[in-house]
């Protein structure tokens, strides 16, 4: 199904400023189908902003975003083609640092919400598929529980299942384990690792170095709003990389 010669996401010269502060200084990035791209960088380096630009939760000031073969059309006034954007967003799964499950719905309802009300798929199919997904991420018995009843790790696995329920072409992970207690990080990473092995296209903003090294096909290191260095994990963790990246690895960011 996945074709590693086809681009899944391509960012070209992405720029974004918050007031006078330029967060993204012209970022270009390409992820092929089946790629797992780990995006590393110190806090404030612009990695989350970059990820959030891909589905336009953050509106870039300039540059181009392509998802699959389709470029997101930007109007002169800084707007987007709303219908196209909604369609593309439905094909991009997003997993947030704080899970962001809908608190008034059970776990199962969270999973079938967008497939039914955005993608207009038949309810029975959505339910059957959602149950299979919950089984896959290991929380099938929680289907009728509300998010508040679950641990952080379970909530994040439910959130991953919710994203998968929309049949996404690309999965975006925005620091998916940063809000978790240390003992819960493993269960979420195991699910993400399984997705990577299935050949899913994933862009992951993370501080988990072992995940970046062992699972990703490409590592991108952001520094002060620009891509400082990128390459395969082997190259990056061996002699390669830059001074800045080595400093980051050696604990310069206070997270390792």
């Amino acid at each position, binding site marked *: 199904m996945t074709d590693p010669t086809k681009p899944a996401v391509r960012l070209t010269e992405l720029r974004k400023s918050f007031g006078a502060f330029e967060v993204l200084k012209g970022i270009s990035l390409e992820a092929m189908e089946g790629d797992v791209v780990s995006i590393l960088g110190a806090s404030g380096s612009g990695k989350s902003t970059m990820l959030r630009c891909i*589905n336009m*939760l953050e509106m870039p000031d300039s540059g181009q975003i392509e998802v699959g073969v389709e470029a997101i059309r930007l109007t002169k006034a800084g707007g987007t083609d*709303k219908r196209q*954007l*909604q*369609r*593309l*967003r*439905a*094909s*991009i799964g*997003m997993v*947030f640092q*704080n899970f*962001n*499950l*809908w*608190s*008034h719905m059970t776990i199962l309802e969270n999973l079938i*919400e*967008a497939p039914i*009300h*955005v*993608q207009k798929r038949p309810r029975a199919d959505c339910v059957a598929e959602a149950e299979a997904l919950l089984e896959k991420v290991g929380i099938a*018995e*929680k289907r*009728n*529980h*509300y*998010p*508040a*009843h679950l641990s952080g790790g379970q909530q994040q696995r439910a*959130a991953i299942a919710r994203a998968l329920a*929309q049949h996404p072409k690309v999965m975006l992970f925005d620091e998916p384990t940063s809000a978790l207690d240390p003992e819960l990080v493993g269960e979420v990473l195991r699910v993400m690792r399984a997705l990577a092995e299935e050949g899913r296209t994933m862009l992951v903003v993370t501080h988990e170095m072992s995940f970046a090294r062992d699972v990703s096909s490409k590592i991108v290191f952001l520094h002060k709003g620009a891509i400082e260095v990128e390459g395969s994990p082997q190259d990056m963790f061996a002699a390669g990389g830059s001074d800045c990246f080595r400093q980051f690895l050696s604990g310069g960011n206070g997270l390792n």
Partner: protein
Amino acid sequence: MDIPFLYETLLKLLTGVPLTLQLASSSVGLGAILAVMLALARLSGLRLLIWPASFYVFIFRSTPLLVQIFLIYHGLGQFHAVRASFLWPILREPYWCALIALTLNTAAYACEIVRGALLSVPPGQIEAARACGMSPFTLYRRIVFPLALRHALPGYGNEFILMIKSTALASIITLMEVTGLAAELISESFRAIEILIVAAATYLFINFTITRLVLWAEYTLSADLRPPPVTQRQGGSL
């Protein structure tokens, strides 16, 4: 105590209950629609909408409901243009005047309840809905309003109870709801204490019922705040 007289009074006052309930529920219902529109206007970020909505809330919250009722019932009829307009058949009826005044008044208070409730919806959950590709309409219908409703309920229950009591003011413009009937009975019998106590008890009972209904609604909408289903716990999955 003259039990037969109290009973007789109660039977007479009960005939006013349908009008009291009708005035209160219609004004709260219509007022809620207006309140949501006002709240969305106040949160729109557009000065052109924020300013009129804020001004409306300021005016209707800061003047007495009784004055508003008088202004609509007695005041509007002073203008020839109003009397000549197609609205006159409505605006000369005390029932409609009371309903309009109650609706406009409750909308102003409810606007602030709704605005607070909308602001309490966690931004992350809205973002998750946008990331799924939801249109703004679906986003409001499926995520924002259901979450806001849960926050608005306690405050809104309060408002409903206040409105039940506010309908008593409609008796001033000749409407024969519970208080209007009580006033009439007093002028016939001069037994003010007994009649007013029965009238008060009638309101008390109505509001007791409403309090229960609001509690029930809060309960059914807050399954996520209660412990998870017991059957699951017995399964040993926790």
